[in-house]
């Protein structure tokens, strides 16, 4: 029978080879899927993986889509390393959009170069406050953060809906549920003419670098790792579990809020009832796909973004229904997650269990 045998050390070779293997497997089985459904497999795969990357415009769009995913996933990964399960990044993103966007409305007509940074900080605060609720309830009342953060996601969405249909509604907008467009001075600067690529992507890169430093070099990063791996040992070493819960939740909430503020002050430019197409949930996949490592997360965010944009070009170019994209995305993720096993384990063929 086939058995998995743990490697003494993680395999450097497979660490880099598995993503490649997964992509090859996805391409092969994707080709079968498309053929079965009556589409030209070469055309379909081109639409998914090549079309979105053909020019600088496409690359710019890729960064726009990947930016919130990467920023949120970085924050979540820090929590996941310490076994703190923040499932509600979507809600923290929404709150960040509300507070960040709220500042743009507050200073409407009085914008200055100071406003976008202030909005980003405001967004981080909003996200952190929303994440502080599960942190408080967990540390004070022992309430599970999975439930609290998830439920607060729905609450945040309804709060946003209330604000844009009620007090913050655009007075000139014929009663439609949205705020006025932010003033020019409240928008994030774009990097190149003719592209929507804005300063959010450099911020995402900086977040990646910062997280790398935090995890690899700082004492708090070390504490997080220890708490996550062996909680009792952390206790002996005098690390406070409560402090780690607070720190990781505030950090992931702030980053999700930052992503929300970037979305509204970047590509959207106003508050509407739907700010995020589920970035907070997709970012959970991104975090694990990137093996909770900052650089891995950056790559995973780009790949997820590509699969979404590729799905759109497949719909446009081939009329491939979105449903197929869902299935294809699922396959890609399954292969990526499954092939990870080769990094830590060797596959051995054994005749029988006893014949080792």
């Amino acid at each position, binding site marked *: 029978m086939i058995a*998995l*045998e*743990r490697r003494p050390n993680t395999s450097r070779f497979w660490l880099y080879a598995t993503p490649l293997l997964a992509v090859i497997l996805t391409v092969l089985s994707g080709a079968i899927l498309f053929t079965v459904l009556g589409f030209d497999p070469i055309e379909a795969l081109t639409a998914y993986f090549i079309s979105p990357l053909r020019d600088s415009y496409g690359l710019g769009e890729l960064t726009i889509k990947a930016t919130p995913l990467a920023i949120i996933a970085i924050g979540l990964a820090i929590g*996941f390393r310490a076994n703190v399960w923040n499932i509600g990044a979507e809600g923290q993103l929404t709150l960040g959009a509300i507070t960040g966007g709220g500042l743009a409305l507050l200073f409407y007509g009085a914008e200055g170069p100071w406003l976008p940074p202030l909005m980003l900080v405001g967004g981080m605060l909003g996200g952190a406050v929303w994440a502080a609720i599960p942190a408080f*309830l967990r540390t004070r*009342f*022992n*309430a*599970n953060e*999975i*439930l*609290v953060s*998830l*439920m*607060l996601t*729905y*609450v945040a969405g*309804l*709060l946003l*809906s*209330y604000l844009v*249909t*009620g007090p913050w509604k655009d007075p000139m907008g014929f009663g439609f549920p949205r705020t006025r467009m932010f003033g020019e001075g409240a928008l994030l600067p774009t990097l190149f003419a003719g592209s929507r690529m804005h300063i959010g992507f450099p911020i995402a890169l900086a977040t990646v670098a910062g997280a790398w430093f935090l995890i690899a070099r700082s004492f708090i990063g070390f504490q997080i790792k220890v708490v996550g791996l062996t909680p009792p040992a952390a206790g002996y070493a005098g690390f406070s579990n409560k402090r780690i819960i607070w720190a990781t939740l505030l950090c992931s909430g702030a980053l999700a809020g930052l992503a929300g503020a970037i979305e509204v002050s970047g590509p959207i430019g106003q508050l509407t009832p739907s700010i995020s197409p589920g970035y907070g*949930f*997709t970012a*959970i*996949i991104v*975090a*694990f*796909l990137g093996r909770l490592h900052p650089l891995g997360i950056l790559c995973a965010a780009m790949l997820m973004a590509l699969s979404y944009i590729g799905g759109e070009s497949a719909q446009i170019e081939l009329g491939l*229904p*979105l*449903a*197929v*994209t*869902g*299935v*294809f*995305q*699922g*396959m890609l*993720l*399954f292969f990526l*997650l*499954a092939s*990870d*096993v080769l990094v*830590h*384990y060797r596959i051995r063929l054994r005749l029988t269990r006893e014949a080792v």
Partner: protein
Amino acid sequence: MDLLAPIMISIIAASTPLLFAAIGELVVEKSGVLNLGVEGMMLGGAVIAFIVSVETGNSTLAVVAGAAMGAVMASLFALLTLGLLANQVATGLALTLFGIGLSALLGQGYVGTPLKALPKLSITGLSDIPILGLVLFGQDVLVYLSFLVTGGVAWFLYRTRGGLILRSVGENPQAAHAIGFPVIRIRLFAVLFGGAMAGLGGAYLSLSYTPMWAEEMSAGRGWIALALVVFATWRPGRVVVGAYLFGGLTLAQLHLQGMGSTAIPSQFLNMVPYIATIVVLVLISRDATRIRMNAPASIGKVFHPDG
């Protein structure tokens, strides 16, 4: 008073899919596995149950097929997480993405097709009792099944040797393995059961609650079910309380709006079920040691005999 019975019937309809999905996931989590793919499996169950019902006209077969589809999708999850030791959280989320797409693909030809709802029970005499007659004796068979399953799970987990083994696997898989229990196989059964129950929840949606197929018709109920397991602190009885509390509050806020007298914006009323769930969780979570006793210690962690 004549409002009571119909409201209770509405609550039952809103709560039953949550109860199915949550009780299944409870067993999965008790064995130490976290499957976040409930939403995807529900949709898979919903679409297959609907298709089978339309094509064969046999609702029993449809229910079975819905459960089977949930289990098939769960087996994919099991292959990845138990067989290939993939990360459970990410695999579960991927399963949801996959399930949304797959169900939409399968259901393409069935959008806008009507279906007769599952027949309601009618017991002469009992169903005619005022108020409670219809509530207790006038539901469709899946509603009774949901209670039967919950009772069965409670009995299995706490009254049988099998349940003890399952719980010990969830508590400490290394120790269970050392004693000689087949950890992977036990977890596999738990995952398949969870998938079948999510599939049943989906079947209830497309056969009884709103007898139709429409893309993404579960509308987030899989996520609520996941939250309810936590809410229940992994106790089957409390899953019933949670599902009915959530379903009841959803109906209550709609009724409050319907009274027409409230000045509270509807968005805040819509928030009530979510906030109330948090509040109740806080109230029942204060005894930390008891929760730790119920929460499976190894949840979400990959198991491999080599450690």
